[in-house]
């Protein structure tokens, strides 16, 4: 009987703490909350593969390139067409739309520098390697790397020279459209090029990515309401509670019963890894294998950290060197996205399959079987109130957390 009474006391305590406006967090919970706060955010990690990563001149050149729609097949698509600064660097669409419709959701760029792997399947191991992919993707910029070399020589000759200490390749001797990945004509033109010309174009193409990466490295997050709440727990408080009782209750579910924090942890609310969460296949399309192919692509990418165009010293590519390249858990796994600014970034998942935060909570609460591979999710048994509270909490990650639009300049 005594045991039952003690148990009941524990229960009352737990109930009381989840309903109260100023809950008492356990030491372990406090550690979890502090780990979610931007004060735990390390500085942007150095990128030894990009020697101009932190050069102001490279950042300025990269910003111009990021907004330059001339770098596309139809002259209308820039990086910013999909990565729109006013929308958290995404586009509000289920799948990206450049010169045609893509197959995956546009990812936000803010704080991407903290992730060792880029793209939903992590097929690029740096910001600069990532920046090259969309340019030659037929659904995105639909461009070729020789066209990039032409554009650098024509429109950016001086700033390129200032950043990289040499001129871009002379466009006179280069075919207009040539690429190892383009259409038949572009591939044939690439094959006909002299090895030295191909090397020069590849070098300029890598430089182009490195300048864009230097710009993207400056897109950092700013603390918001949730962060002020965590600061208040450590006595750095304003008098007014930063979160409402419902938002606090949602936070409790987030780090407890909901198990959201298992993957969405750290100051970006992402562990930087990959997970199969049983997201349904994009309507009318086969299931996407995700990381299973992305891991091998990153390892084989000629523009990766170990490649000929990287500035990394030997042994400077640890993420690639120790990457998990195979295993059943890679099948159907996608990058764990940051939840900073999540409420403003619908629709969700790698192809925008879930339209709202409500749909997200429904998915995690009652997970369907995986479209391919094995889903890591188990049913949560959340009450309707708890679901609403988690959504209320997620909205506290928004305020101030989305970057103001950077200055646009040509």
């Amino acid at each position, binding site marked *: 009987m005594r045991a039952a009474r003690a148990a*009941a006391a*524990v229960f009352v305590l*737990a109930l009381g703490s989840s309903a109260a406006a100023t809950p008492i967090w356990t030491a*372990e919970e406090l550690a*979890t909350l502090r780990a979610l706060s931007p004060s735990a955010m390390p500085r942007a990690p150095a990128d030894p593969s990009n020697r101009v990563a932190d050069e102001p001149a490279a950042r300025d050149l990269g910003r111009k390139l990021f907004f330059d729609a001339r770098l596309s097949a139809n002259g209308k698509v820039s990086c910013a067409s999909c990565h729109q600064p006013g929308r958290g660097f995404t586009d509000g669409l289920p799948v990206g739309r450049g010169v045609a419709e893509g197959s995956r959701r546009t990812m936000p760029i803010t704080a991407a520098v903290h992730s060792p792997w880029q793209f939903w399947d992590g097929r690029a191991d740096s910001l600069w390697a990532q920046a090259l992919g969309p340019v030659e993707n037929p659904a995105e910029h639909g461009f070729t790397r020789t066209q990039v070399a032409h554009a650098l020589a024509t429109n950016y000759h001086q700033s390129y020279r200032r950043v990289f200490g040499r001129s871009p390749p002379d466009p006179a001797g280069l075919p207009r459209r040539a690429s190892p990945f383009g259409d038949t004509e572009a591939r044939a033109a690439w094959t006909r090029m002299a090895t030295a010309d191909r090397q020069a174009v590849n070098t300029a193409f890598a430089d182009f990515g490195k300048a864009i990466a230097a710009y993207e490295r400056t897109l950092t997050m700013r603390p918001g309401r949730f962060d002020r709440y965590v600061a208040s727990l450590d006595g750095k408080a304003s008098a007014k509670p930063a979160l409402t009782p419902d938002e606090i209750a949602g936070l409790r579910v987030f780090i407890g019963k909901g198990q959201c924090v298992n993957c969405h*942890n*750290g100051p970006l609310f992402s562990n*930087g890894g990959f997970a199969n969460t049983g997201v349904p296949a994009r309507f009318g399309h086969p299931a996407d294998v995700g990381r299973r192919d992305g891991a091998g692509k990153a390892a084989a990418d000629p523009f990766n950290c170990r490649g000929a165009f990287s500035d990394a010293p030997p042994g400077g590519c640890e993420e690639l060197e*120790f990457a998990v390249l195979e295993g059943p858990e890679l099948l159907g796994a996608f990058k764990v996205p940051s939840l900073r600014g999540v409420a403003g970034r619908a629709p969700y998942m790698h192809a925008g399959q879930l339209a709202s935060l409500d749909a997200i909570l429904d998915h995690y609460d009652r997970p369907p079987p995986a479209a391919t591979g094995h889903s890591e999710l188990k049913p949560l048994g959340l009450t309707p109130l708890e679901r609403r509270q988690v959504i209320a909490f997620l909205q506290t990650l928004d305020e101030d957390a989305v970057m103001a639009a950077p200055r646009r300049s040509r």
Partner: protein
Amino acid sequence: MAQLAPSAVTRAERRLALARLAVVAFLVATPALGRPKNLDRSLDRSTEHGVFRVAVRSERAPVPLFRIHQWSLRITDPAGQPISGAAVAIDGGMPEHGHGLPTAPRAMAAEAAGDYVISGVKFSMPGWWVLKLAVRAADGRSDTVTFNLVL
């Protein structure tokens, strides 16, 4: 089977229900589902079948999160004689979350006999992690050992 008086059943059921509620409340209040209370966090221990003694230590303290780093590893026999030339396979993960390590660490021999370096270790969140080492000595003896870390 003896029949219980209705009142006894009710009391027993009530007690059971209370106990269940308490368990649910405990699980809800504790993020760490399934972590044994008496988790052995020793980083210097005998392997499962007592074939080797293995000690590991992070070369950075405290153990960093989100950063690749190295661990030192020492393998001896139970009498303390160093075991050189062993092949060591490394596995692990978070038992509570059902996922493995975010990287694929590798062990290589260091200078001194019985000493090794584990490179490529990364932990991507706080909580209970396990590091499992499968050791195979040059003479064919083999055994495994599991270390528990709470970060």
